[in-house]
């Protein structure tokens, strides 16, 4: 039970405080996770149209041929890339990588966040490049 989270509500997501960039990545990780789950639920039912034959499938696919749906498809791609790469960062930290060895606290104190920051920046740059490359393809900019 997280009393502080319950007290702040969803508004608490927006207050990164001392967590810095990682706090906002946490917020985006949750938002993209919920969005991807919602898409998966919808995708399961859209795929169901296959069972009604070629015409039903063609009808379902025709419904996806609009600028709005193509933009949403790209949004799903962006959400997936971000969630996946931020997830790799979170798993690395969870398993004890890049957080540094335990040491006596000596002033001026160095937080674990400082040690994680290079990984955070590297991973986000790689994710950004993939998001741009995917945009060229999905938004037909090539």
């Amino acid at each position, binding site marked *: 039970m997280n009393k502080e989270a319950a007290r702040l509500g969803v508004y608490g997501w927006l207050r990164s405080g001392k967590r810095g960039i990682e706090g906002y990545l946490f917020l985006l990780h949750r938002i993209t996770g919920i969005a991807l789950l919602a898409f*998966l639920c919808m995708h399961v039912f859209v*795929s169901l149209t*296959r069972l009604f034959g070629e015409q039903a499938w063609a009808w379902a696919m025709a419904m996806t041929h609009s600028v709005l749906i193509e933009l949403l498809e790209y949004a799903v791609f962006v959400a997936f890339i971000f969630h*996946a790469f931020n997830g790799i960062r979170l798993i690395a930290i969870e398993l004890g990588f890049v957080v540094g060895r335990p040491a006596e606290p000596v002033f001026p104190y160095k937080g674990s966040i400082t040690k994680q920051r290079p990984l955070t920046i590297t991973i986000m740059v790689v994710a950004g490049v993939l998001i741009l490359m995917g945009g060229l393809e999905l938004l037909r900019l090539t």
Partner: protein
Amino acid sequence: MQSRYWFWMLLSAPVILILLGWHMAIMHLEGLLGHMVSISAQPLAWEDVMARGRNVFVVTSYVLLLGAGLFHGFFGLRTILMEYWPGKAAEKVISRSCLVAGIILFSVGTYTTLTFHFFLPAP
């Protein structure tokens, strides 16, 4: 029990990363990756959908991806919801709701995939 769920949550992440990455690549990035690997130019065409539906590897990966994705997604959603509705009674309602939704979606998705694979019309 909670740590066991957390272990499965972590384990499902690389499974999703690999299978969903592959799924997205062949379904949406054919123009970009088609120069490097053999990918259908029209993955949503009925003939291509049928060909994938016949492929045991594709069907297995779809079911695995669906299971891993639903578990990862609903366990994550459960964690978020339990932060805002703490308490044993709320935990029970949230956990059971997520479980039921996950089972329904997994059943529908698996039924679609397997029915399409085993009762596919002849080409």
